Each structure stands twice: as C-alpha cells, then as structure tokens.
C-alpha cells in the first residue's frame, strides 16, 4: 500500500514510532525491567548518586528514580492514551452521526460551538476545579474539554468523504446507513483519526503531567513524570540531577508524537503544504 511505502521512507517518522513503541513496551514490562520497587522507601540511601545500584540516583525518600520513571510510563502515557481513547470514541460516534444524519447535525454542531467558545485549557481547569483533584477527574476534564474539537474535525472529514463515488453508489443501491458507515466510512476515516490523535497526543501528555505537576492530578506516592518534577523542584538545591530524567522523558515522548503526527499528515494530505490551511 502506498501509505506504508511512504511511511517506511520517512526516517524521522520511523524513529518517532520506534521511540513511542519502545516506551510503551518499557511501561508494560516495567515490573520485570525496573531494578527496584518504585514505592520502596529507603531513607539510608536518599539522594544516592547515579551509579550501578541506582542507575539514575534516588530521590528524597531513597526511592529509585529509574524504577519510578519506568512505572511512571504507566500513569503518564497510559492515562493520556486512555483519555484520548475516550475522547476519540465520543468524537467518532457524534462526528459521524452529525455528518450522516441531518436531524442530528444541527444539535451536535451547536453544542460543539458552545464548547469551543471556551479555551480548552480553561475548561479543563474549570472541571478539575469543580470535581476536585485526582486522575479520574483529570480524564473527565480532558474528555469534556477536547471532545468538541474531535467531533468537529471528524464531522468535516465524514462530510467530505460522503461525496466519494463508492459511498454514493452504495447509497443508490439502497444499503442502510449503518452498513455504509461500517463498511465504507469508518475504514477510510481510520487513517485520519489516527493522524488527529497522534498530533494531539503530545499536548494531552503535557496537560496531564502539567496538572499533576501542580498537584491536581495523580496523587503521591504513585509515580508520575509531572509529579516527579514537582518533587525534584523541592530538592533542587541539594539534588539538581533529579529533575533531568522525568523532564527529558516528557520532552522525548512529546516530540516523538509531534514528529509522527506531522509525518502522518504530510503522507495523508500532500496538498496540505500548498494549501493555506498550513497554520
């Protein structure tokens, strides 16, 4: 297939994909890879230097930073992916509904307009403010803040695909709307959905770990990269090296998602560069 050929040629995209898959792999197998228990407190070994016993040192409670970093993948990345999965599912269902059924179109789009008149950062803060701190509330806040954008995007894609000859043909043949959506619309939408989600993933990771940094997200002692940074901040003058591993990991993962998203967009939409929409 043309798509895979182009992707295999794009070295940056492949490297980004490798980093993302590698990090996910490390997260899944964290219990087998991590040298220590991420929650084990050992005050006699606090602020251990980088070395063979603690590869990336230990924090103010003597917990192994490398182990916390590996287990942190499970919270930082997996919660971000979970939040995105829920948001994207809502976006697909309502977006396709609005695109395919004229009765639903007006209601859903007006609803999106109202939601989009709030900036999403603010909406997230508002929902967390009302529900209180905690990772579940952060995921809810993310779904509330971001769904409208996905609905809008997927709606516009499904509208444009409905003019495709094979979908028009299928309609003329008298196939039910459900069959057309399942057999023709969803498969062609899939690539666009993956692209949208990849472009957005970096931002989701940044906002979830940012809220955890503020203390509004994942609660201690569960390891999370943003929260590890906020712990490192408190001991910055004694142990400045502690803030490098989590920050660097966030930077690498977010950059990988951004690069992959950009490459996917270039592959799926070659006209994007020449069009005015490139903003």
């Amino acid at each position, binding site marked *: 297939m043309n798509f895979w050929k182009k992707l295999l040629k794009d070295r940056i995209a492949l490297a980004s994909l490798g980093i993302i898959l590698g990090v996910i792999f490390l997260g899944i197998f964290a219990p087998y890879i991590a040298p220590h228990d991420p929650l084990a407190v050992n005050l006699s070994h606090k602020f251990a230097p980088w070395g063979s016993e603690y590869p990336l040192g230990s924090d103010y409670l003597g917990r192994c930073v490398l182990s916390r970093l590996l287990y942190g993948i499970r919270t930082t990345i997996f919660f971000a992916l979970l939040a995105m999965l829920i948001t994207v599912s809502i976006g697909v269902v309502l977006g396709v509904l609005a695109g395919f059924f004229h009765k639903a179109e007006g209601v859903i789009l007006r609803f999106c307009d109202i939601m989009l008149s709030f900036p999403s950062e603010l909406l997230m*803060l508002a929902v967390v*403010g009302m529900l*209180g701190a905690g990772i579940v509330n952060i995921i809810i806040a993310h779904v509330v803040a971001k769904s409208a954008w996905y609905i809008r995007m997927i709606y516009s894609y499904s509208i444009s695909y409905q003019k495709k000859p094979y979908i028009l043909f299928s309609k003329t043949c008298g196939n039910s709307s459900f069959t057309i959506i399942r057999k023709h619309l969803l498969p062609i939408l899939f690539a666009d959905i993956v692209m949208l989600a990849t472009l957005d993933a970096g931002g989701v990771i940044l906002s979830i770990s*940012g809220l955890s940094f503020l203390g509004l997200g994942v609660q201690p002692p569960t390891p999370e990269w943003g929260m590890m940074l906020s712990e490192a901040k408190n001991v910055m003058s004694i142990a400045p090296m502690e*803030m490098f591993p*989590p920050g660097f990991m966030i*930077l690498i993962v977010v950059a990988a998602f951004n690069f992959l998203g950009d490459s996917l967009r270039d592959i799926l939409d070659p006209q994007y560069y020449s069009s005015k929409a490139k*903003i």
Partner: protein
Amino acid sequence: MRRLVYKRLILLVPLLLGISFICYGLVNLSPSDPAEVVLRVNDITPTPEAISEMHKELGLDKPFMTRYFLWLEGIIQGDFGISYETKIPVLIEIQRALPVTLILAGSSFLLIVFLGLSLGTLCAIFEGSLLDKILRGFVFTAMAMPSFWLGLLFMWFFALKLDLVPISGAEDFRGYILPTLTLSCSFAATYIRIMRNTLINTKENLYILHAKVRGLKKSLVLKHQIINALQPFIIAVGMSIPRLIAGTVIVESIFSLPGLGRLCVHAIFSRDYPMIQAYILFMAVAFILFNLLADVLVQWIDPRLRRQA
C-alpha cells in the same frame, strides 16, 4: 467598520449570559456540598444543623434559578461573593493578584510578538539556510518542551548556579525575567512557525510577482508580503492571549508569583467555589473580548474582508 463592531458587541450579550450560566451551573455539578466545605474550612464539625444553617447563610435554600439571578445581579454590581476560606471579597483578592499576572502575561506577549515577527520573517527570507534550520530545530524542541521543566531548568541554571536573578517572588522586575522567558518559549515557537509558513506561502502570489516585475525594491516587496502575512498571525495571537493568561497557572506556581493562576490553584485545593467561579468567568470574558479585538484588527488591516462582511 463601526457597524460591524456594534453588531459584534450586541452579539456579546447572549454569549456572556450563556457563559455566566455555565460557570454557575458547573458548581452545582460538583459532588461536594458548598455548605459542608465552608464548615470544614473553618474547622467546624459539619453536623446536620450546622449544615442547614450554613445553607441559609449562603442562600443555598433558594431554588437554582433564583440563586443564579442573584449571583448575576451581584456580578453586574461588581460583587463576586466572599471567599469561603479567607472571608475576603473575591473581587479584592482578584484585584490584588491581577497586576502580577498582567505584568507576566503582558511582558510575555510583547516578547512573543517580537520574536515571532522577527525570527519568523528571518526564517522565511533565508529559507533553507543554516539559520533557518537552527531556528526550526528550536521551534520543534520548544513545542514539545514541558513548560514546568523549562522553568525548573532556568531556575536551576540562572538563579542557583549563576545567581543572576532571584529564585522566586516578585519584589522587583528581576523576579519576572525567568517566568516571562518560560511562558514565552512555547508560544514564540508556534508564532515563528506560523509567520515563516505564511510568508513562504505568500511568496508565490501574483501580486508579489507583479511587484518584482515592476522592479520594486526588495525591502518594499517584503513589506507587502509581511502585511499580507499578518492576518493569520494576528488571529492566532488574539486567540492565544487568554491561553497565555491560563498558562500563567503553571509558571506562577513554579516561581511562587502571587498572581491569579496561583490564586486559582489554591482555590481548587481548598474548594473555594466563589473564587473558582470568578476566575473562570473572568478568563472566559477575556477570551471573548480578545477574540473580538483580533477580528476587528484583522478586518482593519485587510479591506477585502470588510467588503465581504
């Protein structure tokens, strides 16, 4: 032009009403009872009697719509309620914190516009050169950089190692240098990218070719190009001002600046609902006003849009 502004201003009224309703309604979705929160904050055991008394004191025994209109009436008169925690009127707390946030957001805004316009234009002029490549590297790094890590790195290097600026606090202007740099970084990257890409896209337009054929000076051609590339830039900048103010939440927490963002985070922890409501309403209104301002500015710059409207 004037008619357009009036029309948009009139449309603001229903929009603001809707937003105020959402702000107010959100509190009622909250799982905890405000009366109980007030009692807990003031170290009173929330017995059923105490709770029902507090309900009366806060006016929670009235129906929802009545409460909403009372709240709205208060806001129109500048009364945002009283903070549950400090018992100080919310408006006074906001007035205290606002200057810090405005200085931070304002200085970042100036820096972002300056960097975005100058570096974006440089990138487009020297497209493909070493400078362009370096700046694009910076853009991609800055867009993936978590602002809370960048802030810590700046703090560690400039305040702890080199001892050039104070670590935290806002006693004098030096306390704002690092927060401003931290806040500006990712935004500046976005605008360098926008400016560069729109300038490169406008290069192929016919009026540029025409200007070149007529033998106009290079600087004059560039001037026309820049004016035409400003439109997406201004829209993006207008949209980002509230995001900039929302972004101060993290930066103010890192550098312990007593601004609006820190006030809001503190209010979230202590479940100080009047405070949170006021902050969100304030931010939403700012968002709408700056969007309007950006729209008007764009139309003022580009007469073609005015005729369409």
